[in-house]
């Protein structure tokens, strides 16, 4: 089951909300859908690609660690502001352990002065430990050039990636 809400404002804004039962098979489909909608309101193909990358990485995390039947992804393009603010968010219920690990990873990535250099550190760690260790989140910061944040409300975890750059 996949439920979608799409709003497209006259000022170039767009809002997409997709809720679906966790399925890794849906993730690439949703990435393509988010990219297709982004193309309607954004003109920079590089930015659209970065939004797709962030959507995919956040969504795979959310689907992997969701403890119940639902994951929601939001895409918000605020058209009235210049430069446009583009935000990708995921929301799901998760275990306390996973939420704590996620928050630690995001805090560490956010504290890094150079996300690209820190991504190399994460690659080194992954190569030696064999564990992911936030590689997908580091990729959002380094390659998608988006800022990460995480909010927890009980067992609900919401992770956001936001860029202030839009062309």
């Amino acid at each position, binding site marked *: 089951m996949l439920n979608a809400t799409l709003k497209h404002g006259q000022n170039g804004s767009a809002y997409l909300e997709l809720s679906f039962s966790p399925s890794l098979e849906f993730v690439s489909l949703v990435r393509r859908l988010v990219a297709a909608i982004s193309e309607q309101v954004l003109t920079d193909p590089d930015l659209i690609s970065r939004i797709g990358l962030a959507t995919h990485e956040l969504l795979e995390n959310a689907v992997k660690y969701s403890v119940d039947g639902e994951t929601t992804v939001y895409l918000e393009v605020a058209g009235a502001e210049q430069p446009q603010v583009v935000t990708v968010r995921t929301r799901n219920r998760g275990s306390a352990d996973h939420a704590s690990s996620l928050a630690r990873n995001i805090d560490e990535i956010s504290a890094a002065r150079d996300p690209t250099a820190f991504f190399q550190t994460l690659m080194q760690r992954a190569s030696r430990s064999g564990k992911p260790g936030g*590689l997908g989140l580091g990729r959002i910061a380094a*390659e998608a050039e988006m800022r990460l944040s995480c909010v927890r409300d009980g067992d609900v975890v919401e992770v956001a990636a936001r860029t202030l750059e839009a062309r």
Partner: protein
Amino acid sequence: MSDVAAFTHRDTEFSAIGQDSGDGLVLELAGTADARAVEPLGRVLAALHRHAIANKSRTVTIDFRHAEFMNSSCFKAFVMWITAVQDEPPDRQYKMTFLSNPQFHWQRRSLHALACFAADLISLDSAS
């Protein structure tokens, strides 16, 4: 070129086709390397590495030109492969060339990150 089954995978979303031309190994990737591709990609890269070492290959080319997308887990599979090459004695290490497609924007940053991870072993070549 002869197709090398040990480092070849094909499904509806993703394929990794290995070939040994005699001059060097080539792995052509196509489609979407998402969570479903992690296991086959890891297996293909491990087999490719074993073949390269056994045959004393000097170069391995990864052709990403038809790779629409790659997630971080598949990206990590490349990190692990590169690390395996780095862990070989210097005389057994081989060079890696990544062919990219500028139309797939994710490749510019992702392949650059991989190249920086092993700058002495990896070169990038963009499709014209």
